[in-house]
């Protein structure tokens, strides 16, 4: 039985997701010691820009998104800057067919690995592990929208991290996510989702609900702990020896700022622009 990590990396005008995936692959090698595969539509760019990538990446899988037009979303660099760019991360359902592994850890490129806790679940018989609960880096903030996919409908599951085995049930799950993407307008109307942009988290939440017979069961299994994230409005100031230092974004701040440092905790860094800048420094010696 093989196990490995799969990233989807589709660059847009603003964010180099391939760079993030390679940086994260380096972290995966260190903490999980597993093979890494990157799915991308820009293989030439990857090979030319990061010619040393094979140190950390075992498979590069060429694959387009299957779409020609994309909706735009806001990208933030802390609380004082945001801009719009295309969001192309729409074909996560391809993970089932594209993954070269029997057990696959699918990660967002900006979910940075800093410990080996995911290894705990690899030898279990369950076919899907996912995060349901989450917390953000600030003690004093309560960011809404991550408990249910809309005010009065389904529980929210994060598609940021998925650990799955190839079974008939997970095959159906990924197929259903594909169907939900194709008919997203119908499903977002049905489940009263305010966001027009397709979002993998919503699609997986809906698909899990349907496969569970429109109720809540003990499937899928929940990953250890809760998913830690930093908001797009948090400034990521420095990365040094896998230590991440943030200034917590707070529009209503009157005087003092809150600073957070993290070591040893996996974290979903939503400020992709700062992350991209800082990875450049990390890659200087590659």
């Amino acid at each position, binding site marked *: 039985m093989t196990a490995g990590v799969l990233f989807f990396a589709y660059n847009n005008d603003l964010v180099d997701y391939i760079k993030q995936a390679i940086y994260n692959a380096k972290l995966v090698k260190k903490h999980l010691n597993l093979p890494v595969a990157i799915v991308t539509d820009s293989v030439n760019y990857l090979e030319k820009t990061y010619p040393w990538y094979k140190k950390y990446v075992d498979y590069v899988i060429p694959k387009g998104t299957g779409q020609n037009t994309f909706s735009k979303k806001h990208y933030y660099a802390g609380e004082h800057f945001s801009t719009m760019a295309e969001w192309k991360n729409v074909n996560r359902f391809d993970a089932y067919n594209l993954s070269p592994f029997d057990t696959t850890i699918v990660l967002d490129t900006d979910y940075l690995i800093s410990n080996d806790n995911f290894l705990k679940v690899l030898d279990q018989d369950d076919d899907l592990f996912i995060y349901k609960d989450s917390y953000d880096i600030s003690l004093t903030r309560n960011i809404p929208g991550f408990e249910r996919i809309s005010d009065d409908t389904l529980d929210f599951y994060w598609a940021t991290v998925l650990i799955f085995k190839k079974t008939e049930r997970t095959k159906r799950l990924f197929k259903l996510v594909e169907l939900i993407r194709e008919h997203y307008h119908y499903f977002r109307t049905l489940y009263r989702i305010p966001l027009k942009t397709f979002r993998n988290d919503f699609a997986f939440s809906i698909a899990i609900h349907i496969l569970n017979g429109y109720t809540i069961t003990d499937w899928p299994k*929940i990953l250890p702990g*809760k998913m830690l994230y930093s908001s797009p409005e948090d400034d990521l100031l420095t990365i040094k020896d896998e230590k991440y230092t943030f200034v917590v974004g707070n529009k209503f701040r009157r005087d003092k700022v809150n600073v957070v440092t993290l070591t040893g905790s996996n974290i979903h860094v939503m400020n992709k622009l700062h992350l991209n800048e800082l990875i450049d420094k990390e890659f200087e010696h590659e």
Partner: protein
Amino acid sequence: MDQRLETVLQDVDHINTINNQKRLLKEQYVEDCVLYYNGGKFTVTKELLGFTTQLGTSYITDDNLVPVEIDKDEFNRLISNVYWNATKKYHTAYQELIKNSRNIEELLNL
């Protein structure tokens, strides 16, 4: 030190930063205390450790009240390992935090 970081550090909410760092350690500790065993998910606590030593059967319910069959000796050994490793790591990080709590740069390990 990074120039931007130096500027920010002149204006940090010290108490809030300490409390926040403590909370992050606590959440990481709970994550480290999780054990998956025979299809069940167990968050290892002092109560679980005490309970399993008194357990007369080989069946136990997990965090989601799903019944799981266990090999008692093996299960006890595993949960003890998980608990002591996680708690030792938590204690070390917590002591470091307390020791450095007066100085914001040391507190944030910068």
